[in-house]
């Protein structure tokens, strides 16, 4: 809860979980698995722990619900020191999703989801309505799936049930350990999108472990890149990590395609669209040629009476054929909406037969176009931006150092 007496010096976002100097040394191992990590996890955000295998990211996550007991340090949850509280009570306040899901095979889906509410002593009526609500929320029809056993569900459905089970008692915090790791790529993409949409409404504080930087960029509000011993190499928003990797380790980890990855963060609505010449389907040849002549483009976009893109028609095709405009040229099959990312736009571009994407509004009416040149100049800009920012930061650090000296 915001404390009115705290000064402006406190953090801008209230932190839900705070790890303070937290360490874990497994008996018989020379190096700590987690070496005094300090971390603030803001309320309502998805924080990704990502790093190479063996870096201690899963151990760090399991320290939070104390499936692994820390050797030293403190865990603060909602302002309360939970390092020493009863771990079972603690875990009932924290949702937990793992890659293997771990549904109880001898319980029905609804009994699985009801596990924590039953431990918390909810009445059966409330549990039943909560189970149905959650099943619907994760996209499983309650009537169909309520009484099924886990073995009768596909991998993707099991993971949905696992998410529903973690959400059952409406915990403020969820821990997710590679939740989509064992699922085929197409289903994974769909589950990720659905989960992001779900998170828009539930606004949980989520700690999410993955080894996949692309998943981290897609899912994270913030990403903590960890190196061996769970040392934080960089903890920042995906944009800033891609734009300004803190060091070589981070740069190596996010790989050479960092700028390209940022295309997944930039929306079509954030860039300037290129106007292509347009003409209605009923336009005369002369009108089309007129429009073409008035621009530097090689083709005209033919729109239907609702201003929806129909075909790309080049000057040569107009002169060669006298068939209707809607039947010549190439179909304008690459269409995106403004909230699509540049990565989506680029994807559409590569799939389409005419290398240009039409941007349409909600009703499908043409707004402008994205060309490869646009995408490429955005990449250039992102790179320049990144360079400048890191230079500015270096200067700032330098200045601060000078003052201290």
């Amino acid at each position, binding site marked *: 809860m915001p404390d009115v007496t705290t000064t402006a010096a406190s953090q801008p976002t209230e932190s839900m979980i705070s790890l303070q100097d937290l360490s874990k040394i497994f008996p018989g191992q020379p190096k700590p698995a987690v070496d005094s990590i300090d971390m603030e996890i803001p309320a309502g955000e998805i924080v990704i722990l990502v790093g190479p295998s063996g870096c201690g990211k899963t151990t760090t996550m399991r320290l939070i619900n104390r*499936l692994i007991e820390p050797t030293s340090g403190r865990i603060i949850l909602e302002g309360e020191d939970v390092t020493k509280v009863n771990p079972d009570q603690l*875990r009932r306040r924290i949702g937990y999703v793992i890659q293997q899901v*771990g549904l*109880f095979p*001898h*319980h029905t889906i609804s009994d699985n989801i009801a596990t*924590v509410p039953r431990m918390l002593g909810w009445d059966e009526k409330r549990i039943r309505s909560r189970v149905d609500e959650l099943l619907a929320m994760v996209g499983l029809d309650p009537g169909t799936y309520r009484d099924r056993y886990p073995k009768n569900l596909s991998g993707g459905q099991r993971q949905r049930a696992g998410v529903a089970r973690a959400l059952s008692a409406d915990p403020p915090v969820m*821990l997710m350990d590679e939740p989509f790791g064992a699922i085929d790529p197409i289903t994974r993409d769909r589950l990720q999108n659905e989960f992001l949409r779900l998170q828009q409404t539930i606004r949980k504080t989520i700690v999410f472990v993955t080894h996949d930087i692309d998943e981290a960029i897609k899912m994270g509000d913030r990403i903590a890149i960890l190196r061996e011993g769970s040392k934080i190499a960089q903890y920042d928003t995906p944009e800033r990590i891609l734009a300004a990797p803190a060091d070589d380790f981070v740069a190596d980890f996010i790989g050479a395609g960092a700028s390209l990855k940022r295309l997944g963060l930039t929306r079509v609505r954030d860039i300037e669209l290129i106007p292509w010449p347009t003409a209605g389907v009923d336009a005369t040849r002369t009108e089309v040629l007129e429009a073409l002549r008035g621009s530097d483009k090689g083709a005209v976009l033919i729109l239907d009476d609702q201003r929806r893109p129909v075909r790309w028609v080049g000057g040569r095709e107009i002169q060669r054929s006298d068939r209707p405009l809607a039947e010549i040229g190439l179909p304008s099959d690459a269409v995106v909406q403004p909230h699509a990312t540049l990565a989506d736009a680029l994807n559409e571009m590569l799939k389409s037969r005419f290398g240009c994407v039409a941007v349409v509004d909600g009703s499908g009416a043409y707004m402008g176009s994205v060309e490869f040149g646009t995408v490429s100049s955005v990449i250039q800009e992102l790179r320049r931006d990144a360079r400048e920012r890191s230079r500015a930061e270096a200067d700032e650090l330098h200045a601060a150092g000078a003052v201290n000296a």
Partner: protein
Amino acid sequence: MALSGQPVADADLNPGALVAGGTDLFRGRRASAMGYLGLPIVLAAVCGILFLWLGTQDLGSIERRSLNFERISTAFVEHMALAFVSTIFVIAIAVPLGVLLTRPAARPIVPPVIAVANIGQAVPSIGVLVILALIWTIGFWPAIVALVAYSILPVLRNTMVGLQQVDQPTIEAARGMGMTKRAVLQKIELPLAVPVILAGVRTALVINVGTATLATFVNAGGLGDIIQGGLVSNRQTVVLAGSVLTAALALFIDHIGGIAETRLSPKGL
């Protein structure tokens, strides 16, 4: 025998199991009235033929004394008492012991316990019975002790294997949801181990029905009385009748055990 052999997908083919429920053939893979009744009908027919055949034989007084209804039913009741009482003791001892031995704290004492149990398996059941009779007494209780000692290993072993093979992520998920260790054991581990434990109990029950046949040598009754009576008096008809009845009982109990095994296992597995 190793405690946990290599995992084999087909439970029928588990190379470690001693008794593999031979009567399962009659039950088939799916529950059906014919599956449940097939074997009992066959066994009843065999017994019926036996008695019809006995009726055609010219039975002497010794045969009549051994093969009357009262004698057979007494032996049957004694036999069932031996088999079931010993099995109940076995469950009461072996399941809690198996639970204790699979707790992390018990890890160091598991290998010696298993070694002793394995050597114990080599002791012949008739030897245990006779030694107990010689050093203690004859009758029901020494027979029970011998039966328990001889059939405890399958239940102990299956309890341990059943608990150890519970999927680790399932346990972790339960712990992660805030179930206490006790709750995880009661609600997750034990229910999931039930099918394997039940298979062990069924094996123990069949062993006990078999070993109870030998109880006659320590004056504890049972169907062995009839066979032994026939052998001592050199009456082949009595030996045959007693053996057929005993074999039919053992197969019937195995069959019932198989049905119980399927019925009592949690759904969803």
